[in-house]
């Protein structure tokens, strides 16, 4: 397996790029593994990678029912940020962001993480105050943040509506300059290749259909390709967490909702960083290919359909026009949906379950993509040590029972409100 570099690509240019081999193997499942990760999305692959790399557990299988990166990893709007207010989220997402910053080199795979900034717009002083609270907390936690006034926002994103015609004029915003976007598919592929090189078996088209549980401890999984044994099994199947957990008899504080995403025709540079609208729910960035990538609210009802409906699309059109009046003549090229694990406080769940050896990674709500390396990092730790890292300690499943919520929006146990 050749190392990726500009030289290997140049060399390939002389030989028709024929020297490349599979980025990851296509192994048959073995009878047993030291650890199994269910779900070949970014999180599952990252978990396997860090298990092998940092914890010396290399007899690991990643079981994917379809093709890797085919779920939310390949459906999101690729935003990476760590602009969280609450401690339980702040340190976790910041760890993740730091991993992102070195990920391409670490994986020897360019995940195209580009730190062009994430700007949350405020349209009133009260909203600016709320952002100040968050930004101050970020700064004191060691995360970068800047509060921008209207003129500074205009400098950062000149195409926004600064006219008198704006229904909710822009007052300012909170900028995290280290935030940005990454190439979503590449993250799955990079982790897959990295894990594979460390000996991890990535097994596609292998659906988990049941768990082997004895005396409250997990012993293996039944799959569409037979029984595979392991005493450490991690679930990283966001979108379908309730379904897989139910196979182990677990009921969770999670609902599945559809979130739509959109991309426009490719354009020459139009908007630099990520901008979120504060008088609605709309976020937009531009991919390296030139497409404007945007999204907004959930459709609002439980769904596993991976596609949404027109009311939300109309809503996004209104919000897009309210934010960037020049967007009217740009055309939307494609829209699709992903299935979100919406947890009851809007924050993820990464930790142990009541079943020994079975670990849960889910409830990602909107936040899954940006968390990918951090999630894998702490989940690998949790699986390897059978206890959470301090960074994910508060993101446990028990918090719902004890009332120690991690509720960034303060919306309460209403999944579609987060």
């Amino acid at each position: 397996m050749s190392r990726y570099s500009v030289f290997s690509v140049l060399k390939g240019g002389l030989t028709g790029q024929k020297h490349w081999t599979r980025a990851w193997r296509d192994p048959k499942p073995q009878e047993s593994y030291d650890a199994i990760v269910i779900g070949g999305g970014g999180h599952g692959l990252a978990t396997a990678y860090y298990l092998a790399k940092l914890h010396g557990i290399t007899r690991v299988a990643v079981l994917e029912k379809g093709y890797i990166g085919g779920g939310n990893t390949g459906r999101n709007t690729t935003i990476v940020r760590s602009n969280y207010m609450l401690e339980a989220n702040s340190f976790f997402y910041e760890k993740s962001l730091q991993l992102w910053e070195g990920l391409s080199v670490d994986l020897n795979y360019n995940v195209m993480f580009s730190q062009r900034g994430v700007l949350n717009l405020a349209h009133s002083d009260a909203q600016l105050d709320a952002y100040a609270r968050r930004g101050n907390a970020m700064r004191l936690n060691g995360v970068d943040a800047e509060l921008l006034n209207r003129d500074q926002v205009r400098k950062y994103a000149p195409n926004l509506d600064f006219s008198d015609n704006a229904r909710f004029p822009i007052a300012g915003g909170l900028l995290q300059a280290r935030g940005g976007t990454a190439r979503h598919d590449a993250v799955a592929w990079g982790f897959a290749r990295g894990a594979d090189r460390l000996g991890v078996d990535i097994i596609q088209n292998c659906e988990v259909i049941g768990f082997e549980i004895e005396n409250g401890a997990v012993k293996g999984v039944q799959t569409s390709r037979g029984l595979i044994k392991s005493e450490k099994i991690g679930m990283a199947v966001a979108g379908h967490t309730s379904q897989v957990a139910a196979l182990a008899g677990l009921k969770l504080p999670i609902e599945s909702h559809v979130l739509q995403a959109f991309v426009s025709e490719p354009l020459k540079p139009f908007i630099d960083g990520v901008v979120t609208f504060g008088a609605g729910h709309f976020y937009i960035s531009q991919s390296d290919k030139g497409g404007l990538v945007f999204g907004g609210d959930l459709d609002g009802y439980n769904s596993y359909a991976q596609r949404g409906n027109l009311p939300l699309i109309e809503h996004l059109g209104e919000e897009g026009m309210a934010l960037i009046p020049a967007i009217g003549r740009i055309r939307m090229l494609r829209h699709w949906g992903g299935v979100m694990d919406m947890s009851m406080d809007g924050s993820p769940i990464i930790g142990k379950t009541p079943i020994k050896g079975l670990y849960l990674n889910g409830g990602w709500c909107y936040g899954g993509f940006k968390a990918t390396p951090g999630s894998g990092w702490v989940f690998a730790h949790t699986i390897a040590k059978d206890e959470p890292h301090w960074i994910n300690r508060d993101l446990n499943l028990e918090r719902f029972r004890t009332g120690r919520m991690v509720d960034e929006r303060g919306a309460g146990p209403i999944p579609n409100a987060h």
Partner: protein
Amino acid sequence: MSAQPNRLGGFGHINRSKPIKFSFDGKSYTGFEGDTLASALMANDVKLVARSFKYHRPRGIFSAGAEEPNALVALREGARQEPNTRATVAELYDGLVAHSQNRWPNLKYDTQAVNQLIARFIPAGFYYKTFMGPFSSTKLWMIFEGFIRKAAGMGTASGLTDPDRYERSQAHCDVMVIGAGPAGLSAALTAAETGARVVLVDENPVLGGRLRQERMEIDGKPAYDWAMATAAALQAMPNVRILTRTTAFGYYDDNLIGCIEKVADHFPVPPDNLPRQRWWKIRAKQVVLATGALEQPLVFGNNDRPGIMLAGAVRAYINDFGVLPGRRAVIFTNNDDAYRTALDLLAAGASVQAIVDARSAPESDLIQAVRAKGVEILMGHAVTNTHGHFALQSVEVMPLVGGSPREISCDLLAISGGWQPALHLSSQTGAKAVWNPESCCFLPGPPKRAERSAGASAGQFSLYACLSEGHVRGVEAAVAAGFKSKKSWTIPTVAIEKPARTEALWEAPDSGGHPKKFVDHQDDVSSDDVRLAHREGFVSVEHLKRYTTLGMGTDQGKTSNITGLAIMASLRGEPIQAVGTTTFRPPYTPIAIGAMGGSEVGQHYRPRRRTPMQDWHLERAGEMLPAGMWERPRHYPAHKGETLREAYIRETAQTRRSAGICDVTTLGKIDVQGPDAAEFLNRLYANGFAKLPVGKARYGLMLREDGYVYDDGTTSRLAENHFVMTTTTANAVPVMAKMEYYLQVVWPDLKVKIVSVTEQYAAIAVAGPNSRKIMQKIVDLDISNEAFPFMGCAPCMTAGVPSRLFRISFSGELAFEINVPSDYGQYIWDALLEAGKEFDMVPYGLEALGNMRIEKGHVAGSELDGRTTAEDLGLGKMLSKQKDFIGKALAYREGFVADPRKKLVGLVPVDGKSSLPNGSQIIEKADTRPPVKMLGHVTANGFSPELNSPMALALLEGGLTREGDIVIVASPLKGLSIPAKVTNPVFVDPEGKRLHA
């Protein structure tokens, strides 16, 4: 060069009496009404129109429709500029201006064409393998990325506000027919004849579909005549609505079809009375998909040069637009259909140098007819390479088995890889496409919704099948929608054809030199890229698409997806069905985001809620602040130049000294009536309401089911069975919905009716020591402290208006709130102003309102943030121990009671001067080097004239146990670290004497 050198006499449906001037890349041309930009450019012999995405290869016009991958232009200029417009669907209008894009300095000399020279070094996904290092940071990558971003993209957005209007419309129908070719026209006609309400949509300006583009006969006359006659018949039927220039872009749940009608895109500027585009939502009981088929290209060396065109498109340009795409043509095909192109070219006076047919020995009438014209037919051959830079000059042709290449000179290569039904809408319903090896295409899967496909979109490619299937499906749809098929139908007479079988040829062999063979023209994905993807394990169709960007262009792979996946299937050694298609995502063709937004733009983005006194505020307020959809006055400057700070401090001081008046209409008001009203409120609120006497108001605290504080407000008992409740402005709507939920779902046995009366009443607060004197002037009630004590409420007449008076206070002063019917709001406001004149009563805005509540330590939105408990807010005692209420069961969980929780305190700056900005975090020491443990945060701050000091409310770990401590109020965002003393949150009148005065 003569004007329109390629225009054909005697062909086409363009209106030659209406010449139209247009320009492309600054050069002026003339076309005719009925032209597209593509047909007009072709008429003027413009062959080079675009550059490709990655290699900047010269490209011409490839198709005659929505599937166009190459001929993308920037249409119009200035604020109306539309990047990436397909010239093949842009209708020509007078003065049309278009520019080529993605080239510099111009189309002919494009510096980035250098990418062709380094193509071998930038295969699919090269960026994943490069630009990573050497350091563990994103810096180096971002430098490269800057170049990539500039090089990528196609067109340029203007960055200017779109000046045009969009609107939305809805329709319901029994049968919706999508596509008005032979099948769609037939289906619409038969469905309509049953009496069903029919909507027929077609993306083109004129009905007829391929009948406009082919030389065929129906009932012995040109098929075009039949199409026009049928269109006219449909037009005349009252139960039929025809929407032309309307693209059905998506098939959504419950047979809702999203459509875009291009109302005015064929005008230079939309007429005043018309929107640019209309967004339709059409709900159909039954749908007939007659969306036709898309001709697929063939993959061979240098298959992208200007002059290489789909065979069906060649016929369209000749027959519909009267344009000859080339004079010396070669045709390369794997099916019979392209033979029609030979006949049409011959009829138009062009020469056909050869037909290169990949099939070994097909035979049919059509082939015979072409052979009879003396055209050379090379069976079992393929085109393997082409020559010419800005225009095609020759092709290399080689037998598929044995033999050596031969060069044929030509200026047009018409290609056909067979036709693929346009399955987009069918597939969006969840119907899984089925591969049909007979006709080498995917057919629609078994329907999942009330839809059926007819004609070419169902793989029925002959004219006879289109007409007959259209008839059958139209009747079938109408019957399914509940109508009766009334008579026997006669299918028009057409020639029955027996074409020879199509044989797949996914990729032609090389004749040496290994030229690029493009699968996806727009994104420059070659068959080598597909092989690279396979080699590296990206073998699932979704991985193939994502890794190579195959089918990701503005055409969404309409002419590339099938070929790409077929090549992958052969590499995998699996049948095409097993490999499957990628998901067909809406929209069918790209849609303007402006159309998505409809007319809800600018000031109309959201409705604006107005209180009855809004105009008065607008005249006098220094600023209006948004409060949801409401807007509220922030302050009322006494004179020009008075700052916000000066104004709100003055308003606060004057209210506390004498009197102030404030519009509080926006608070939610819910009328609660019925014998069980008291019981209902008693369950809803955490504190008791069962025993609230008539004529009394009470402050109520509501919890969420999870035990956190939800909302607060005063609720008054007007009569035994009649309460009026107030909520916060923000929660007025959700609280109402929640109350309805409990009444309808959980406690339907409770006899209570509720109604929101927020907008029925204007609410005005008058506060301050003189408020009684002012109020007494205009109410007919004795409001002395004895007769109308604190928390009293009563109906009364105010200046002759029936109203309700409440003695409640948010400011902490002696205060009254009066509710009057909205229509009288301004009248009573004026009356109160008049009454208050002698006391120098001031109007006060949101800022003073907030300032006074901070002085009193009253909680509001920034403390009720969904994460605070009653105990946190110092309201723990309100949670009744005597009764059960919503939220009680979960309000005493471990996390609610265990310290450290952040609790409400007051803060004053140690220096007595510095303000304590909202959103500041509270820390122990002045050292802000991270990570710093945060003890709490400032929720609200103001300036108390009575203390003559800034003050703030905060949530702080330990709460009042820290009273007297000095903490640091830190705002690293603003570079501030201010020592502050922890105090009781009630700064003014802690005993509450003024309230009871």
